[in-house]
């Protein structure tokens, strides 16, 4: 299983020749034309205070258009696999830049790694450019191969679906060559599921074709009449009853028409390479691929789509690295055409809601725990830092102190503004509303570390953004009535809950968040200078504490058990883990665009989804 298909090798061989000719220029071009795919996501990068486009890199929506894989922070194991898949989808020469983390084991080592700050990023990009300009990265395919990619291929016998091997070979029953197919489901999907591993593709197609030729010989065992199933012959001919040509019958024909229809409608693996006329039977990838199939049979089990037509389904993963969704959030939608029949969202970066495992380790003292939790939630670190501080202080029996209450509120509200701006940028990304994305991201970067005075200076800009959005044509008609949630549904929190009263659709949520931005500005004015919440000295106390903080996405509750200043166990309950349950209701029966918008309007942060 080489890392590049024959076609691509020849292709890149020509290109190598061209490369040798204008090496200098092409290398310079590579250096000048950097476009990066950010893992886990753009929102995370901005939340870390990174302004990627300022370094002269374009931010790419798909791995196809990217040549730099920019890994921000530490990746969970699942995200590591996703990153590998995405890397495999990027055209060569491709590079890896890791900021403030380690390269996932399944990837080749990082070409440039640096700290998690704007300066470090700029410096890293500079080094990368120099390396590229020197032509360090030839187009020649480097053998990159990862278990993640292999895990997706299994080998089945076309005639005996029950025969499934891990290695290519021949079927023990009929001796036919086994056909490669995607194992699919149990493996995590990247942003672009449909061809995870062009790396294996060609070998894959080859085996298909080989199998087809075999199919011509062996598979054509029985012939039957489309109209009169009782007619079964060993050789082709015409039906004695109706004179129609007999057609090949294949074993296991009548199993799972639904899947067959499914795999054929998303035209799973039609390769017409060479043979045009459908004389041969494929067997390989779908059941009942031959003979006459009653369309009524095929369609009768299919669900009716919105307009009452039985359409076949196509399960498409969106995310976890998808421009329209928060990084780390994976939305799996079952589509018929452009309509969503069902879907659910899962988080690949969520943290565990209950930590009991600290008994063994004594490292988990209060400060470490604060660091652990706020690091685990990059989109709203301050809120959770504050949450832990409050919980621990309560466990320690300290009174809420008025001294730095103002500072803490200030910090919380500042983060709320930044977070809502981040959501606006995300909305812009989803709606292809470039201006909003740029504006909101810029403001978010300014707000993140701003102090009271600079926030006051930013206030007009923020208010104009709000009013301008209210007046933007098409925006209201796009958002009105999208993602409607019943007002009385109990598990709503935060902005979503507060928006439920005035309409409870995406438009209401937008206005609610805009309102909260200005409200927070007011609070900061009246409150104290924003400062990162610091834990007051609690000593080696023991006890249990519980606290609630209204994070930007809704109340989060934390209860923890403290022993001699060490956190023994905690229980976390966040808004997002409630909201993510709403997704199936929200997307069902919607158009694709509306469904994505509805999910986006919830502002789900996969990091806060607890399992």
């Amino acid at each position, binding site marked *: 299983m080489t890392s590049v298909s024959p076609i691509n090798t020849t292709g890149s061989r020509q290109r190598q020749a061209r490369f040798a000719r204008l090496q200098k220029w092409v290398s310079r071009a590579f250096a000048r034309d950097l476009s990066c795919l950010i893992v886990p996501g753009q929102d995370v990068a901005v939340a870390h205070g990174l302004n990627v486009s300022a370094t002269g890199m374009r931010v790419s929506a798909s791995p196809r258009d990217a040549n730099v894989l920019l890994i921000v922070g530490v990746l969970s194991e699942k995200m590591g696999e996703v990153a590998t898949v995405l890397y495999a989808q990027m055209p060569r020469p491709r590079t890896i830049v890791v900021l403030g983390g380690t390269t996932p084991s399944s990837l080749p080592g990082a070409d440039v790694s640096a700290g998690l700050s704007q300066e470090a990023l700029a410096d890293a990009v500079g080094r990368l450019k120099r390396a590229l300009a020197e032509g360090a990265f030839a187009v020649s395919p480097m053998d990159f191969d990862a278990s993640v990619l292999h895990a997706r291929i299994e080998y089945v016998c076309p005639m005996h679906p029950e025969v499934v091997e891990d290695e290519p070979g021949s079927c023990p029953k009929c001796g036919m060559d086994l056909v490669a197919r995607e194992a699919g489901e149990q493996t995590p999907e990247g942003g672009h599921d449909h061809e995870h591993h062009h790396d294996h593709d060609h070998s894959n197609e080859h085996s298909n074709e080989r199998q087809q030729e075999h199919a011509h010989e062996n598979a054509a065992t029985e012939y039957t009449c489309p109209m009169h199933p009782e007619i079964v012959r060993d050789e082709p001919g015409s039906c004695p009853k109706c004179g129609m040509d007999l057609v090949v019958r294949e074993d296991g024909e009548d199993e799972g028409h639904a899947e067959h229809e499914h795999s054929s409608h998303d035209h799973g693996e039609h390769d017409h390479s060479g043979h045009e006329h459908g004389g041969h039977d494929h067997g390989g990838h779908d059941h009942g691929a031959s003979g006459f199939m009653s369309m009524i049979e095929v369609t009768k089990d299919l669900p009716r789509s919105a*307009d009452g037509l039985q359409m076949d389904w196509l399960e498409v993963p969106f995310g976890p690295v998808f421009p329209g969704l928060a990084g780390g959030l994976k939305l799996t939608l079952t589509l018929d055409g452009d309509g969503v029949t069902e879907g659910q969202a899962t988080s690949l970066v969520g943290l565990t809601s209950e930590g009991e495992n600290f008994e063994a380790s004594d490292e988990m003292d209060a400060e470490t725990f604060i660091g652990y939790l706020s690091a685990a939630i990059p989109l709203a670190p301050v809120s959770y830092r504050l949450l832990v501080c409050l919980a621990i202080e309560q466990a320690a029996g300290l009174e809420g102190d008025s001294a730095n209450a103002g500072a803490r509120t200030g910090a919380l509200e500042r983060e709320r503004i930044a977070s809502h701006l981040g959501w606006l940028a995300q909305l812009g990304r989803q709606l292809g509303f470039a201006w909003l994305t740029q504006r909101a991201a810029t403001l978010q970067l300014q707000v993140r570390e701003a102090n009271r005075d600079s926030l006051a200076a930013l206030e007009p800009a923020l208010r104009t953004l709000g009013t301008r959005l209210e007046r933007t044509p098409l925006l209201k008609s796009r958002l009105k009535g999208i993602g409607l949630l019943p007002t009385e549904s109990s598990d709503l929190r935060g902005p979503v809950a507060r928006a439920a009263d005035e309409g409870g659709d995406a438009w209401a949520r937008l206005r609610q968040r805009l309102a909260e931005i200005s409200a927070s500005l007011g609070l900061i004015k009246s409150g104290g200078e924003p400062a990162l919440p610091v834990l007051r000295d609690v000593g080696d106390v023991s006890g249990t504490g519980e606290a609630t903080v209204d994070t930007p996405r809704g109340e989060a509750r934390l209860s923890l058990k403290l022993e001699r200043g060490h956190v023994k166990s905690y229980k976390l309950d966040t808004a997002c883990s409630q909201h993510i349950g709403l997704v199936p209701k929200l997307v069902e029966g919607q158009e694709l665009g509306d469904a994505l918008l509805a999910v986006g309007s919830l502002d789900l942060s996969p990091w806060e989804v607890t399992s």
Partner: protein
Amino acid sequence: MYAQAFFVAVFGLAAIGFGVVVFRTSSMMRSALALLFSMTAVGCLFLAMQTEFLGVLQIMMMATEMSIMAIFMVMFMMDPGGLGGMDMSHQKRFSIGAGVSAAVVAIAVALLSDWGPAAEQVVDAQAQTRALGMELLGRSMMIFETAGITILTAMIAATAVAIPVKNLSSKDGKEASE
């Protein structure tokens, strides 16, 4: 003269070739688009025969028409990708016989009958278009208007048939009438 003969022959062959592909491939997309290109070739044939307006019109109309044909193929075939390679035809011999005989008869008529002297020249495209317009809104206005009304009726009828009773928002009718 010879150039014209050449182009007529080339586009004629193209039209026939794509026409054959329509029923030879097992991928619905391919047969739909093959039909499209066959129609386009017919349009070019018109152009080669100095019938500019009709040619361009044909080329224009068929693009949309056949693309819509394509989506309906994908909707209504069990195996749009053609990976099953299933045989979607019946009564082959009879059909082939009918097709061949029809073609042969027509060709025989074309070859055997005496067409008399053929016109050497036609007026240029602009004059043609003008004259055609005059014709349409002059002598054969009635026919033309009837055609217009008919297709409007067909649009409405098709939409009415197509949309389900429960929700009237289906666009299928419109697609069909494009």
